[in-house]
Each structure stands twice: as structure tokens, then as C-alpha cells.
């Protein structure tokens, strides 16, 4: 009977894959779950924006209804040109979030490749790549993005390029450090001994094992990217004016802040909520991946 029981327990534990146990630990963290729910709502709003309000409401100007306070018809009021702020904020989620997520995905893919090559091959390639990354990291990320955007000229795509470049060093460092720690593991040696190509080893064996820390870094970097993108737009170096990016909306309305404060409060809250959600998820994942931290 004891054997039977232990077999049952074994069965029970075998089912728990690594990802499932991480999820169980993540689920216990109420703040992190709250962040996940909040971000899901925001992402749904961003994806479903065309179903909620038509884009024409975002740019349609109507000078007869300037500066309407938040009310029944216009939930978030109207701005100096009589545009519906609710529509602008909803569509702003689409621009702000997709830019942040896009920048992180681009830089994560490039950074992962650079970091893998540096960490896996080591030696001269590694030190060359790391020296270049040291140089880039000596310039603050925001400053790097500002310089690139200012030189290329303001624009959505250029902003995306600038943000991605400024985030690459962080990701390649994370990937490289993980690879250095698992490069000498037996299973890598085994893969090499039965004739795997370097590319296969990196993609099949190394990347899945570096996924955890990479996801943590991604969600924290995403928060940072959304903040930087909105601040660049705010100082006029990001998404140009009629496009409803949250930082751009703030920048348009700051002149009317004194008399119509709702024009500046609401877009700021939108940025704050999405960044809080991403930070909560990132912190929660970090704790869930590292059980040592919170016993």
C-alpha cells in the first residue's frame, strides 16, 4: 500500500512541469495577479480599440465643443480642438503599448542572438562584443534614444528603432550571463558529443533554459520602454502630434493644464496604470522563478 501511495505521489509530482510550478508560485502573489489582470484589460482595450470607438472620433475636430469637462457624452471630456479624449486615450493604449512591446521584442531577439554568440563561443568574439556593449552602456539608455531620434528626426518608426537599440545591451548581457552559467553543463556536452550543430544547441538547449530570466527582464524593460517612449513623445522627440500616443496627448494639453486639469490627469493615469501592471508582473515573476527569495 505504501508503494502504491508513493507511486500516486510520484504521478502527482511528475505532472508538475517547471512552468506549472512557477505559475503556482506566481498565483500566490496577489499583487502580481492584480498586475496580470490589469495588463490583460489594458491589452484587450488596445486590441479592441476599433470596436470601442471609431478612429475618426480620435482626430475629428469640433470647435463648438472645446473643453467639455468629463460627462455623460464625453467620458473623459474634450480637448482644445474639441476632440473626444476618451477615444484618444483608448487608441493611445494601442500606440503606447504596442510601441513598448514592439521595442522589447525587437531588442530581445537581437540581444538574445548577440548574447548567445558572445557567451557560447567566448574568447575573442566575446571580449569584442562585450567591449562594444560596455561602450553603449556607458551612455544612459534615455540619452542614446534621444540622440538617435533627434538625429533621425521625430517619428513613430524612428522612435521604435531608437528604443530597440538602447535596450539591446541589457538583453544581451542577461542572455550571456545565463549561457556562461550553463555552457559547461552535462546536457550541453552530451548534445555536442552526438554531433549537434552549434546553432541547434543554442536554439534547442540553451534558449529554453534562459527563458525565465529573459521573461522577467522583458516585463521590467517593457515598463521602462513605455515610460521612456512617453517621455520622449512628451518633449517632442517621439510620436508626432495628431497620433494619440499618451505622452503626445500630455504634451499637446500641457498648455491648458491650468484651467482644464483633467486633460493632463487622465493620460498620466493611463501610463501609470500600464507601467504599474508591468512592474508588478515582473516582480512577481522574479520571485516565482527564484524560490530562494521568498520562502
Amino acid at each position, binding site marked *: 500500500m505504501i508503494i502504491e501511495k508513493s507511486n500516486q505521489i510520484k504521478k502527482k509530482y511528475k505532472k508538475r512541469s517547471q512552468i506549472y510550478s512557477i505559475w503556482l508560485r506566481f498565483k500566490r502573489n496577489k499583487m502580481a495577479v492584480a498586475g496580470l489582470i490589469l495588463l490583460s484589460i489594458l491589452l484587450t482595450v488596445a486590441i479592441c480599440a476599433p470596436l470601442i470607438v471609431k478612429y475618426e472620433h480620435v482626430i475629428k475636430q469640433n470647435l463648438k465643443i472645446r473643453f467639455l469637462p468629463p460627462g455623460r457624452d464625453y467620458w473623459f471630456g474634450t480637448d482644445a480642438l474639441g476632440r473626444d479624449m476618451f477615444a484618444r486615450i483608448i487608441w493611445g493604449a494601442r500606440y503606447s503599448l504596442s510601441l513598448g512591446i514592439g521595442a522589447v521584442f525587437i531588442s530581445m531577439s537581437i540581444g538574445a542572438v548577440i548574447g548567445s554568440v558572445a557567451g557560447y563561443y567566448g574568447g575573442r568574439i566575446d571580449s569584442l562584443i562585450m*567591449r*562594444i556593449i*560596455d*561602450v*553603449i*552602456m*556607458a*551612455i*544612459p*539608455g*534615455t*540619452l542614446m534614444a*534621444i*540622440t*538617435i531620434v*533627434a*538625429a*533621425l*528626426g521625430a517619428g513613430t518608426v524612428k522612435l521604435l528603432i531608437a528604443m530597440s537599440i538602447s535596450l539591446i545591451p541589457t538583453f544581451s548581457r542577461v542572455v550571456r550571463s545565463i549561457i556562461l552559467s550553463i555552457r559547461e553543463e552535462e546536457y550541453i556536452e552530451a548534445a555536442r558529443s552526438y554531433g549537434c550543430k552549434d546553432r541547434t544547441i543554442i536554439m534547442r538547449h540553451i534558449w529554453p533554459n534562459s527563458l525565465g530570466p529573459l521573461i522577467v527582464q522583458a516585463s521590467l524593460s517593457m*515598463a521602462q520602454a513605455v*515610460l521612456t517612449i*512617453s*517621455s520622449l513623445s*512628451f*518633449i517632442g*522627440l517621439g510620436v508626432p502630434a495628431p497620433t494619440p500616443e499618451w*505622452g503626445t496627448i*500630455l504634451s499637446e494639453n*500641457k498648455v491648458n*493644464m*491650468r484651467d482644464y*486639469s483633467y486633460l*493632463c*490627469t487622465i*493620460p*498620466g493615469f493611463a*501610463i*501609470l496604470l500600464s*507601467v*504599474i501592471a508591468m*512592474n*508588478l508582473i515582473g516582480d512577481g515573476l522574479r520571485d516565482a522563478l527564484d524560490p530562494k527569495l521568498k520562502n
Partner: protein
Amino acid sequence: MVRYILKRLIIMIPIIVGITLIVFAILNYTPGDAATLILGFDATEASLDALRAKLKLDDPFMVRYVRYLVGLLKGDLGISWRHNTPVAAELMNRIPNTLGLAAYAVTVMLILGIPMGIISAVRQYSLLDHTTLFIALLMTSIPTFWLALMMMLKFSLELGILPATMPTSAAITWKHWVLPTFMCSANLTASTVRTTRSNMLEVIRSDYIRTAKSKGAGQFRVIMYHALRNALMPVVTIVGINFNVLMGGAVITEQVFNISGVGNLLISSVRTKDAPMAMGCIIFIATVIGIVNLLVDLLYVFINPRLKSMYVRNNAAKEES
């Protein structure tokens, strides 16, 4: 020690050369003709050519870059294309404001962040701890330019007690610095609180703290004398890393409050393709970051005697051989 400092200063040189190369390349290979930007779009072709010849814009990229580096070695940052004045002089005007802002922000970060983190850890799970953590989360996630707007709304427009923008002249008082300092340090203070708290929690649970407690030392002594030193070490590293972020944030702060600092100058000169000026700004910022990181590393050795003894022993061994 002196040798270590010298070595670190020498390592900074290739980094600064690399940075100048990157910025020079960005400014050089992006669209927009410098001569047209300087003289305006209605300038004649002849005057444009004359200016290009004067600034030697037609030389190949590497030639101009090496020329710039040679000038830099002589301590010559060049002459601004737009203002026709020496870059160094303009930088000197701007540096006090930027360094001032950074210094105030770091001070606030240390004076507020470390004690809050300690109290929060000592009273873990109390109301105070939860409040502090919540505010810290809010401050790491808040867009600082928006925080600045909201504070301007409250303190400048509504209450009228703090000015919202920086005057250009010498009329700057401490009141002008309150809001910019707050904006610049909000993020960093919050992350200092969080790091201090988590390190303190780790240290408090270690064996030697239990020993100190059991031998009858009071809580204040245990925390301040035994725990703080070890808990602070990672915090010092974080301060070094954060200084990088701070300099980036200072650029945005200078824009929001219209402070005439290096960051403001950098943005306007990159926009107008004023290459010598932009390079000067970047070199200044990179140098400051490098020096602060060096100071942080030295401080690290100072508060962690284990590292110091290791360093001295290594040195002694080298001298013997």
C-alpha cells in the same frame, strides 16, 4: 590604491573614444546637411560651399573623426557650428546647473531612500512598511514628467508657493530647485528604498545578527552597527548603476523645467546637427558617469574591508615577485 585609480581612469579612455565614434557616426550618417541647417534653406549654393570648405565638411568621415580626436587630446572641444563660440565655454556655463541637479537628486535619494528602507525592513509587514512599499511602487512606475506636471499644478498654479520654471539669470533660489529635484529623484529614491529593504531583511536573518542580539546589544546598535554596513553594500552598487539612469532623467527634467543645463544643450544641438556641441555634451556626461562609477567602486572598497585586504595582499604579492 593610486595605481588602481589610474588604471580605472585609463580604461575610461577607450570607452569615451567609442562613445564619440558612435555619436559622430550617428550625426554624420543621418539625413540632413549641416551647412544648410546652419545657414538656413534660402542660402545660396556658393555660401554653402564656402561654409563646407571652412568647416572641412567634404573630407572623408574618418579623417574628420581623427581630426576631432586630435583636437580633443589637446583639450580643444572645437567651435560650435551654430553659435560660432567655443564649445568648452558654453559647456562651462551649463555644467553647474546639471551637476547641481544631479547632486541634489542623489542627496535626496540617499537621505530619504536608505532610512525609509531600513525602517521598512525593521518593521516588516507593519502598516508603515506596506505604505512605504506602495509609495515606492508608485514612484518607480510613475512617468516623472507627469509627476512634475501634477506638482506644478498643485504647488505652482494652485498654491503658488513654488515656481514652475527656472529663470535664466542669477535669480535662481532654492525654491526653483525643489520641483526639479523631486522629479529627478522620484524613481531612484523608490528603487533605493526597495533595495535597502530587501538587503536589510536578508542581513537581519543572518547568524551574526542573532549572535549580536543574544549577547544583549540593543536593537538600535544591532541595526546601525552590525547590520547596516553589510546591507548597504549592494545599495552602493545600485547607486552607481542608477547614476546612469539619473543622467538620462536629468535631460528630461531639464526640458520640462527649462533649466539651461547640458541635457537641454544636447537636445537642441543634436536637433540642429551642431556636431561639435553635441559631442562635447556627450563626452561630458560620459565622463561624469565614469568618474561617479569609479568613486562608487572606491567607496565599495572602503565600506567592505574584505575587498581592501584582498587588494592589498595582491599588491604585496606582485611587488614581491
